[in-house]
């Protein structure tokens, strides 16, 4: 949906995805290395634009560009969707190779979810074959909530959850990490 939820972090920010971002988004989603663990994306620019138009009209769906603050460079995407009754799923999380935005982008998304949207819980689902992202969520302290058999084209998936209480417990540690990453020559 169209929204104006923005968050500035130390080195990165989340800004709403606009129609003009369709080429960038398509480039990420059709990169063979970056997209190996996500659903298939039609490489047609027209289809991507049509998807974006549909997204703008979809309630409870928030899509952001992860932007490098100092340079304005688009580093990736992240989204929160199926938001209903204080709970929602996040994903569409793709970062360009070499980006350092992983920790801060997840921190900023969780801040938006719990501070701006007043949510109670957010969760994500990762195919188990995507070992590094599963390890990332485990390492960040997200709770494994469920194993979802045959949930994706690549097989089983794991659901990680973050409640408001857990976010409140973890956020300062994530913020410290983002702060140290942000102060770079």
């Amino acid at each position, binding site marked *: 949906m169209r929204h104006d939820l923005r968050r500035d972090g130390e080195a990165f920010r989340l800004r709403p995805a606009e129609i003009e971002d369709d080429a960038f988004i398509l480039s990420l989603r059709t990169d063979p290395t970056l997209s190996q663990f996500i659903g298939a994306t039609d490489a047609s620019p027209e289809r991507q634009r049509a998807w974006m138009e549909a997204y703008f009209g979809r309630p409870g769906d928030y899509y952001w560009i992860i932007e490098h603050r100092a340079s304005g460079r688009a580093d990736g995407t992240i989204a929160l969707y199926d938001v209903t009754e204080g709970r929602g799923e996040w994903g569409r999380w793709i970062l360009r190779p*070499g980006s350092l935005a*992983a920790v801060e982008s997840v921190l900023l998304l969780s801040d938006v979810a719990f501070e701006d949207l007043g949510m109670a819980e957010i969760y994500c689902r990762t195919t188990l074959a995507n070992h590094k992202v599963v390890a990332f969520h485990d*390492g960040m302290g997200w709770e494994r909530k469920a194993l979802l058999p045959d949930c994706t084209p690549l097989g089983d998936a794991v659901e990680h959850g973050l409640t408001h209480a857990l976010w409140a417990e973890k956020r300062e540690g994530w913020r410290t990490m983002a702060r140290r990453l942000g102060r770079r020559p």
Partner: protein
Amino acid sequence: MSVEATLRRVLETVLKQSFPTGEDVCRSRVPQWDSLKHVEVLFAVEDAFDIRLSEEEMAQADSLSALAALVETHHAS
């Protein structure tokens, strides 16, 4: 202790596994070396060698050999 030995110890500590001496350690080939661990590796390297990596250097530091080259560059300057 040599730069390589120190870096190997840093990687083994952060990634919680052993890497044979003499072999390069590459992020792409180590499943445990995810985005979060990458940040932890970089911070540990900075602390171990008292250096500060630039954002560009952090993005390039995806192996023991690359880290060693960065450390050598920082210590030479």
